[in-house]
């Protein structure tokens, strides 16, 4: 009897000790995670203050942390003196346009590469993948000239200062096709065969079977493409000439004079640019977080 209770006590102690270790471990884990969150979000918080200060007092000595008054001049300047709203709308149209078209052509091509047989498939796929590694900056000029010359061929649909010219060349993303192909390959082959037996055309298989099943992957790729184009700078820079056709990144870059940077305005612009994308992100984050990236990216 006594032996038994001793044993129980021992077990109890051990359990207590274990739970204590576990608790300590999780405290450490959350501390580390908190540190990384701080490092992630901190820099963005750091520019809130300059955005609400006059540029003149930004780097004043001694360092001034909080704005002595709630200065809105930088924002006012952006909204009244620049085409900021227009840039924002353009950015949205640009990024959305690229995303929508890229998703369509990437999923279609991904399906073809994953589930269709045709001569030269491996070679074509290899070539497509190879172009993934081309530095985009180097292709800037040739692509620009191409779009310029396409102006006449496409009745002005794809050309300078057009959404077509801005959007279409950016929709080609070998990475997207690669990701989609990888995902479709993870789907059981039998599904496609069953559908073929059931008389479904490739298009019906694609719309009724593949698309519903790859929704998570499509969302992930969509967010990925949207982000890339949201941040894109060089292409919209060269392909737009008018202030009204510019996107946010380019518009903000034109605010910098030669050698002179209006830091307050830049900080304000950065904040204002982050605001809508943050909303978009928060709206989709449920999707994003739930979307199984492993599925999308599985080898």
């Amino acid at each position, binding site marked *: 009897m006594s032996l038994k209770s001793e044993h129980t006590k021992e077990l109890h102690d051990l359990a207590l000790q274990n739970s204590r270790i576990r608790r300590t471990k999780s405290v450490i884990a959350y501390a580390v995670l908190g540190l990384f969150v701080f490092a992630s979000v901190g820099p963005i918080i750091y520019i809130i203050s300059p955005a609400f200060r006059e540029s003149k007092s930004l780097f004043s000595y001694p360092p001034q942390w909080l704005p002595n008054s709630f200065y809105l001049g930088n924002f006012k300047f952006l909204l009244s003196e620049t085409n900021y709203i227009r840039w924002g709308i353009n950015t949205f149209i640009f990024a959305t346009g690229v995303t929508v078209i890229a998703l369509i052509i990437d999923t279609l091509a991904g399906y073809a590469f994953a589930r269709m047989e045709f001569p030269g498939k491996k070679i074509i796929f290899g070539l497509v993948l190879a172009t993934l590694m081309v530095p985009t900056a180097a292709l800037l000029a040739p692509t620009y000239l191409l779009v310029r010359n396409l102006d006449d061929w496409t009745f002005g649909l794809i050309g300078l200062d057009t959404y077509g010219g801005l959007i279409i060349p950016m929709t080609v993303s070998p990475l997207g096709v690669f990701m989609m192909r990888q995902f479709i390959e993870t789907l059981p082959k039998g*599904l496609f*065969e*069953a*559908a073929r037996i*059931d008389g479904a055309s490739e298009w019906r298989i694609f719309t009724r079977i593949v698309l519903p*099943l790859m929704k998570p992957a499509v969302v992930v790729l969509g967010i990925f493409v949207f982000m890339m184009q949201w941040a894109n700078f060089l292409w919209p820079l060269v392909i737009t000439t008018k202030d009204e056709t510019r996107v946010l990144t380019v518009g903000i870059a034109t605010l910098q004079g030669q050698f002179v940077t209006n830091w307050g305005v830049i900080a304000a612009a950065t904040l204002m640019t982050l605001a809508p994308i943050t909303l978009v992100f928060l709206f989709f984050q449920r999707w994003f977080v739930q979307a199984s990236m492993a599925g999308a990216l599985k080898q």
Partner: protein
Amino acid sequence: MAEVIIRKLTKSFGDNTVVKSVSLKVEDGEFLVLLGPSGCGKSTILRLIAGLEDVTSGEILINGEIVNFVSPVKRNAAFVFQNYALYPHMTVRKNVAFPLETARLPKDEINKAIDEAARILELQQLLDRLPSQLSGGQRQRVALARAIVRKPVVFLMDEPLSNLDAQLRQQTRIELMELHQRLGVTTIYVTHDQIEAMTMGKRIAILKDGELQQVDTPSETYDKPANTFVARFMGAPPMNLIQGRIEAGVRQFTFNGDGILVTLNSSQMGLTDEVLSLQLNAAVCLGVRPEHVRISTDLSVEGVSGKVKFLEPTGADLFVTVSIGIQNVVVRCPPKTPMQIGSTVTIAFDMTHTHIFGADGWNLRRSN
């Protein structure tokens, strides 16, 4: 309802030929089982018939029409997949409706067809569930429902029971056969399980390495295996195959296999002396099923004597492995036959059920 004929069907993937000039005729309403070990090309043949693979050479006819270059749906063959291949994002109803919606049938017709299929396969309660909410057997029935709802002329089933546990498998086997009887649709059924083949097939086509070995009723494949492969593949435990030579005796030919001397009575064996003489001195096999070997502890009985090596009681039978020299012969005895390991016994073969497989492995009974 249709007759399926394949002629000299060959399928290669690159340099690898997996189906080698197979010809087969499946009668209208027949239940034919394609049997063979994995990798023998049986599934490929099924997929070729369905139109899931592209024929390298040869012809496939359904109802007298060459369908090599006809799209799967126009062949009007339904396919039941090993893992059912149900659409995971659709309810049972949607799954079953899919082929009909694809064919653009009117809504009420679709509903009627679904109801009927559901009734036949007892799926009424499950129509609004997703495949992930079903058990293996239920999924299997949904897959069948999806297949029958189209009213196909041919059923192609690719190991449909292999994902079920043993008990369910047996039960479903019976259900499948009932379904076949009820619908009378020509069915080609692929399996690697010889019990399944024996119990289900009206005929069995046995394949090895892409080549057809034998097409026969289950009892014929068992009783008169075409070659050593079939002999060993069908039946558990397999047929005893004893290697040896045919020698000329005084009046009759004898089989000599390392101490096992058997006088061959050609008429009892359904052979002629001419056939045997062709194999004189060639390396042949003598084949006999365990139940066609008589065993006796009485050493005076005529036969070959050997030592008991193993005993395998299975309940219904007792299998005795007798070693004679370097050869082993398995004998089936009634369950409680007194046998001792190490004791000496005499065995004798029932010549009417004994086969000689020639040097090429083919049963001599078939070469006349």
